[in-house]
């Protein structure tokens, strides 16, 4: 009897593992991307977190138009063309036909994209009567911080494939803002279906878009799984599935790259670059990126409400040391809050250079001869503009000790961190900004305007009407030379007032296996994996 069982067992096992050959092929057509954080949401309209945008924006959604990274010109996406009326206040978009929304486990679309979807998607951002406006805490940080919600009068459906944006006034950065990763088009039909079921909050968590991949599953701290969108309008998608392996630890991400558990790795740290580059099976991409890493002071809190104190603290920081110990040659020291590759960049000689003696004098002048105690928040993730905020914080901490200021380093999990900084719980914070468009306004309005303060995106909590006026004047004209003058003044004002101290501009790095091609790294915005494939 025992022999009989032993004889039958292997047959049974083989029977169990019998399955079709194409499953093995499916496996070969998958891509694993090691990401550095959980996504905050699955809708780019409601977040500005770079790690989230990298994961969701270009993979799940499409925009009306985009910016060609080489020529800087606008190019059609969901809109095939657009007209701008002479006044600049009415812009008409002509939409592409036969664009399919994702068919997922939770939604089956009955129609293709039309004007209703565009009206709904943008209506959500500014129209309080839109049923989804207040869903998800009614926060659209990017659009609110650039004042788009105040700019759009209405979005009108002209016919099924024509949409007109009517603005209160012409604004030169309007099209640029529509080309950001935040201005995605979502499905009105899906929204209505959820509304009928009373599950509106699901809209931002179980996404439906028109992008190259569709959402399959998300296991927090573990993975996100996308499948190929078989009806993608632009081109056939090569990869059967795209999986994000959430690995917060930078060293682990590199180790997974070596063990081939990841095909692509986000933000390898600068210390590991030379090692990665020495390997034949790994390819390291480098891209000059429009970004700024800074140290922002909470200007509403004493003693940081005094510009003299902010200047004193800025004088105390040895940026050269930071560049060596944190960036290892993967960045350049900032001489303005705009990166040098921006067309409005003007170097600021006013910005403090390392001088602890002067720092002490200024501190004494401000009435803090014996120093004080403050918190220094360091973001827990590695970003292009700051590969290692903890280390930077420690360096600054020791520099501050020299002038008698005690800094306590505060860290939280990334999403909690961003939320608390948004509520201005910090004294000072090491953060940064990577541009979404090449327009210089992207470095001023979302970071330092009064509207950004209210939407929680302005980490220095600095609201200066004079500065806001400059930004508005710059946006009111299409004359580049005139805009340059306004942005020059804006940069000077930041160097004088120092709500934040610009530290560095980082280069964007990405490591991938040499057998992967078609990854698009751009100087602004998130990464796109639409055309990623394995080499034959």
């Amino acid at each position, binding site marked *: 009897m025992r022999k009989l069982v032993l004889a039958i067992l292997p047959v049974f096992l083989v029977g169990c593992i019998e*399955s079709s050959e194409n499953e093995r092929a499916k496996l070969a057509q998958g891509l694993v991307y090691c990401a550095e954080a959980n996504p905050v949401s699955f809708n780019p309209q409601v977040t500005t977190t770079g790690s989230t945008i990298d994961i969701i924006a270009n993979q799940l959604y499409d925009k009306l138009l985009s910016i060609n990274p080489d020529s800087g010109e606008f190019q059609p996406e969901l809109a095939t063309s657009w007209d701008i009326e002479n006044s600049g206040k009415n812009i008409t978009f002509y939409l592409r036909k036969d664009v399919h929304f994702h068919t997922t486990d939770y939604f089956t679309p009955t129609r293709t994209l039309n004007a209703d979807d565009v009206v709904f998607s943008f209506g959500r951002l500014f129209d309080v009567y839109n049923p989804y406006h207040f869903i998800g805490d009614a926060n659209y940080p990017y659009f609110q911080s650039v004042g788009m919600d105040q700019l759009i009068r209405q979005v009108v459906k002209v016919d099924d494939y024509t949409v007109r944006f009517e603005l209160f006034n012409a604004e030169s950065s309007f099209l640029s803002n529509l080309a950001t990763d935040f201005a995605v088009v979502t499905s009105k039909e899906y929204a209505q279906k959820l509304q009928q079921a009373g599950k509106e909050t699901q809209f931002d968590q179980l996404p439906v878009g028109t992008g190259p991949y569709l959402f399959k599953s998300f296991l927090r*701290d573990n993975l996100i*799984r996308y499948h190929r969108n078989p009806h993608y309008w632009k081109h056939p998608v090569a990869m059967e599935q795209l999986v994000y392996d959430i690995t917060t630890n930078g060293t682990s991400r590199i180790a*997974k790259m070596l063990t081939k558990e990841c095909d692509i790795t986000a933000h390898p740290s600068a210390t590991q670059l030379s090692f990665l580059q020495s390997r034949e099976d790994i390819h390291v991409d480098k891209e000059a990126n429009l970004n700024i890493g800074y140290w922002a002071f909470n200007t509403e809190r004493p003693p940081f409400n005094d510009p003299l104190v902010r200047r004193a603290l800025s004088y105390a920081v040895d940026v050269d040391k930071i560049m060596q110990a944190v960036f290892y040659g993967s960045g350049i020291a900032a001489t303005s809050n705009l990166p040098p590759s921006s067309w409005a960049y003007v170097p600021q000689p006013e910005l403090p250079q390392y001088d602890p003696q002067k720092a002490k004098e200024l501190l004494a002048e401000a009435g803090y001869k014996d120093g004080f105690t403050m918190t220094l928040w360091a973001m827990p993730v590695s970003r292009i503009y700051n590969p290692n905020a903890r280390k930077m914080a420690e360096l600054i901490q020791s520099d501050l000790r020299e002038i008698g200021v005690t800094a306590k380093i505060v860290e939280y999990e990334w999403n*909690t961190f961003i939320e608390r900084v948004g509520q201005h719980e910090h004294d000072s914070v090491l953060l940064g900004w990577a541009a979404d468009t090449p327009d210089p306004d992207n470095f001023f309005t979302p970071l330092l305007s009064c509207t950004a303060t209210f939407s929680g995106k302005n980490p220095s909590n600095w609201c200066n009407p004079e500065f806001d006026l400059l930004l508005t004047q710059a946006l009111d004209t299409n004359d580049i030379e005139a805009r340059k003058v306004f942005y020059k003044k804006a940069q000077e004002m930041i160097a004088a007032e120092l709500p934040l101290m610009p530290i560095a501009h980082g280069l964007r790095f990405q490591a991938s296996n040499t057998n992967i091609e078609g990854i698009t790294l751009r100087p602004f915005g998130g990464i796109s994996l639409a055309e990623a494939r394995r080499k034959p």
Partner: protein
Amino acid sequence: MREYLLRRFSLLCFMLFALSVFTFSLSYLFPGDLLTNLSGVTNSNFNTTQLLIEKYHINNGYISQYLAFLHRIITGDWGVSLSSGEAVFEHVWILFPATLELCIYALIVAVIFGIPSGILAAAYHKRWPDSVITSLTLMGFSIPIFWLALLLIMVFCLTLSWFPMSGRIGLLYEIEPVTNFILLDIWLDGFPYKGLAFQDALHHLALPTIVLAMYPTTVLIRFTRDSMLQVLEQNFIKTARAKGLSRAQLILHHALRNALLPVIKQIGLQFSTLITLAMVTEVIFSWPGIGRWLIDSIYQRDYPAIQGGLLAVSMFVILANMSAELTNSLLDPISRNKAHGKI
């Protein structure tokens, strides 16, 4: 036997009561807002706050709050995690099987290697097999497991590329989670990808299981060896030996049963140590279990999650210990006569 069971049962009840009181009091001991600690809801508006106050009986005194707490625990309402915004119970339900799975495999490995090695060491007492096994055991016992884990990763993952270094299975394998025990799920799924998924899961399991099994294996070797040596010293063995029985006969027919009784009890008790060690292993191998989640929650000051995780782990340890005791008493009638139970 009935009296024994009753004693154990009352001890179990008392332990669970103490645990629930401790967990309940954590909400008050943690810094921050009491309502947030209890519910996981932050920035609630007036209406929500009122609803929460009512739900948690905040205005009704501690006893009433405690009873409400017990009711919620039993009905599976463990609050909402501050960092993920999802139900804590849901997290525990999904993550606990991963930890349990790792512990069970480690225990199986420990038994398979530990007991025979212990017997071998005892059989060849004071000869070279004994010396080799004892020295290796001492090494295994002394090495901190995080260090062992890192060494193995360095050698077998990074240098030789023999094993993957994280997770339960290659992420491209799409396995439908049913029981959340990975091997079981693959089996239920009908061994997809031509059984490659099963191989891959075993591949992922290898290093974490070896690391986690190291401590219980060494403990079992030492226990089995000592217990066996004690039995071999006894008169009935000496008599049997005098009768001319071979070493194999002596051990297999006479000594083994007697020697294994304390060892079996030890296997059960190892479970609680394993759960603790599993936390370290999970963090290093990015194993998506409750240990890694609990440690992340501590780091993120996610109080409802810490509370829920502690409750689940402690409850499991108490129950595992209790069942180990009961199994032992079933197999070893003498142990039932011990006057008082202990945990």
